[in-house]
């Protein structure tokens, strides 16, 4: 959904990751990248500006947390800002105390109101409700027929009404709406979904009609249906509808395309109304509640890294991790003892599978998420058992571990000599690799994340 923004931010963060500390200068660079990414994602210009300022303010002059690098902290800040903007919780649906609850669907032409009305009805039906549909779009050719077809396909009540010789206009719209509400009550339908004609926010006459509909029906929800592909104008139309009607929620449609969906941020910012649902396809059930947290993580390509970072901050000893990295990179390299320490630290974070799944899906971690399914958790326990069965001397100097010692270790840990051999071979390789990185002076991926990537390899 948000892949493009995802890539861009990832790139911006990559540059940020190379740096040891946050300075006014290097954060400006990253913020510029983020600005570009947001604009290219159709986030409104002013919203982008606000967002960037907030991020800058929060990033500069913040205490460096113990378990996080400064760059990881910036990521966390941006994540927080975006979640804040979109609203923290999945919005709930309101119902009237006196049925039927009326849900008014509003939006521009072609945003997907009729399709969404059908999907919402289907979703409500699954939740045990008895929705009734009515279309008061007496203007667009075949609009009412379209809803009738949709209603039939999902097997929902529909109020058709009789247009007779009435002219297309507000009186007819209001009459149909009134009749439908009465009909819904008569049929024991607890929800009436009112599909309206698409209209422009600047169309005085039709916006007036919308206000009258609201007055007449007293809806418990007024949903603004917006196309995920909308550009900068999203703020104008959303504001026009909100000022006039007081929308209670937003449905973002066509999210199955490659639109970057920045409109979601814009609309939320100018109306304060939460995005409640997203449309993700052409079928009636391609419709789901909106989860700001998940979407933001998708925007940033961060997996659920926020949770991971929170856990890391809580559980890990940054000093120990750095000492390990130093040791691994220089001189004698890290010992099996150090290795076991690391293993134990990581286990504190949770299962390897859950950790891998929280990692970003792009950048250096590409493919790791997919690999999560193949990780054998018991491997880690076995590796630790093998190391536990070694003597302190063996752990500090792996070269003394001869054939007979291997036999003893295998027996002690309940594994096989082959497994002990594997571990020792992999350990030697890894140690060499780390030392090589240190000697090359290259940008050793000292980060916790990449360590875990390597550990993952170790377990096999």
């Amino acid at each position, binding site marked *: 959904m948000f892949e493009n923004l995802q890539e861009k931010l990832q790139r911006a963060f990559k540059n940020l990751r190379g740096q040891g500390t946050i300075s006014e200068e290097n954060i400006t660079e990253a913020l510029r990248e983020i600005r570009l990414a947001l604009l290219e994602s159709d986030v409104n210009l002013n919203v982008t500006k606000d967002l960037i300022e907030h991020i800058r303010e929060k990033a500069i002059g913040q205490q460096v947390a113990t378990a996080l690098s400064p760059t990881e902290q910036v990521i966390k800040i941006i994540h927080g800002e975006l979640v804040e903007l979109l609203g923290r919780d999945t919005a709930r649906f309101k119902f009237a105390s006196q049925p039927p609850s009326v849900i008014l669907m509003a939006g521009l032409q072609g945003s*997907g109101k009729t399709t969404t009305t059908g999907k919402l009805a289907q979703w409500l039906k699954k939740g045990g409700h008895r929705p009734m549909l009515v279309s008061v779009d007496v203007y667009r*050719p075949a609009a009412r027929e379209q809803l009738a077809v949709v209603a039939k396909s999902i097997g929902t009540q529909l109020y058709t009404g009789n247009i007779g010789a009435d002219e297309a206009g507000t009186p007819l719209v209001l009459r149909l709406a009134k009749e439908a509400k009465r009909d819904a009550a008569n049929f024991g339908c607890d929800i009436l979904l009112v599909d309206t004609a698409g209209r422009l926010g600047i169309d005085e006459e039709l916006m007036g009609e919308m206000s009258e509909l609201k007055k007449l029906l007293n809806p418990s929800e007024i949903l603004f249906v917006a196309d995920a592909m909308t*550009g900068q104008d999203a703020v104008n139309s959303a504001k026009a509808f909100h000022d006039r009607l007081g929308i209670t929620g937003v449905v973002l449609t066509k999210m199955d395309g490659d639109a970057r969906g920045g409109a979601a941020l814009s609309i939320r910012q100018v109306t304060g109304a939460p995005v409640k649902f997203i449309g993700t396809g052409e079928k009636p059930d391609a419709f789901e509640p909106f989860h700001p947290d998940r979407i933001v993580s998708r925007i940033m390509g961060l997996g659920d890294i926020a949770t991971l970072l929170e856990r890391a901050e809580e559980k890990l000893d940054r000093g120990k991790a750095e000492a390990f990295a130093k040791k691994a990179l220089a001189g004698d390299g890290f010992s099996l003892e150090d290795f076991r320490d690391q293993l134990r630290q990581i286990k504190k974070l949770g299962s390897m599978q859950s950790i891998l799944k929280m990692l970003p899906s792009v950048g250096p971690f590409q493919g790791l998420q997919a690999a999560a399914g193949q990780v054998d958790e018991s491997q880690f326990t076995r590796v630790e058992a093998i190391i536990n069965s070694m003597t302190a001397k063996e752990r500090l100097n792996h070269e003394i571990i001869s054939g007979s010692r291997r036999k003893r270790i295998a027996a002690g840990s309940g594994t096989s000599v082959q497994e002990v051999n594997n571990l020792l071979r992999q350990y030697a390789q890894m140690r060499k690799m780390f030392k090589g990185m240190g000697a090359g002076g290259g940008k050793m991926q000292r980060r916790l994340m990449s360590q875990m990537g390597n550990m993952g390899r170790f377990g096999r």
Partner: protein
Amino acid sequence: MAIQTLFGSLKDDEPRKPEQEEEALETSRGFFSRMKQAVTRTRENLSAQLDQALSFTRTVDESDLEDLEAILLTADIGLSTTTEIIDRLRERAKREGIESGAALKDLLKQEIKSILDDVQRVVRPPATPPEVILMVGVNGTGKTTTSGKLAAFFQSQNRSTLLCAADTFRAAAIEQLEVWSQRSGVPIVKTRQGGDPSAALFDALDAAKKRETQVVLVDTAGRLHTKAGLMAELDKMRRIAQKFVAGAPHQVFLVIDATTGQNGLQQARLFTESAGVTGIVLTKLDGTAKGGIVVAIAHELKLPVVFCGIGEKMEDLLQFDSAAFVEGLFS
């Protein structure tokens, strides 16, 4: 001088009959003022911003350019095209010693207009009719409405027209086009909902040949450009048209909604790959949306804007006029 015609701008030296030319100019002027009216209404904001940005300036400084950049970005022209336009503007302003805000504004207009004009091309009806025009685009941009209006337009140009309802997917799309057919008196060939769009196309082409119809307008189902299967269906329709009528489809119009943001570029790119888009129809220009994405599309993909939609009535379709578009943006 160049005359805006149905299929782009024709230079004076193009062979045309004088009466026709005069008539074209006349209509062009009528359209010009209507289009200007349509776009100006929604551009007041933009224009006020611009004046504010420029009125107090004596020399072109970076903050002016930054303000102009913001205005172009707000119009959905997009970052990369905007940056290029602004860079070019800076260069030219320096080279030509332009200092006043008004002159800078003129220069900016010229830049944008030339981007739009450079990609206009002359398209003539094929020697042997019918001319087949395929309407494509993502869901909800206004393909059916535009097809209905276009049919009426061709009819008014004394070209016999046939509508083909090839959107067999969306509920009631066929009924919708039928209403347009009744309104304009343009005949329609259809199949049932859920039917094979290629079959409808085949029937329409067959009928057009028999009746010696000059234009066949094919309304296709909206589809997201990311759905490979649906895009392949368009390719299939192209091949069928080609097999049955030499050189068909002669034109493929991508219908883009003026509210579309940066995703419009990707739409244009992928629809061109599968369906061979030849021009853009920009719809819903009567709202507050600016439709600036067509500037980016012209700039990056060299696709011209051919028509624009400014309302829901049959006559609310205008031949695209870059001067009016740009004038509307900046006046």
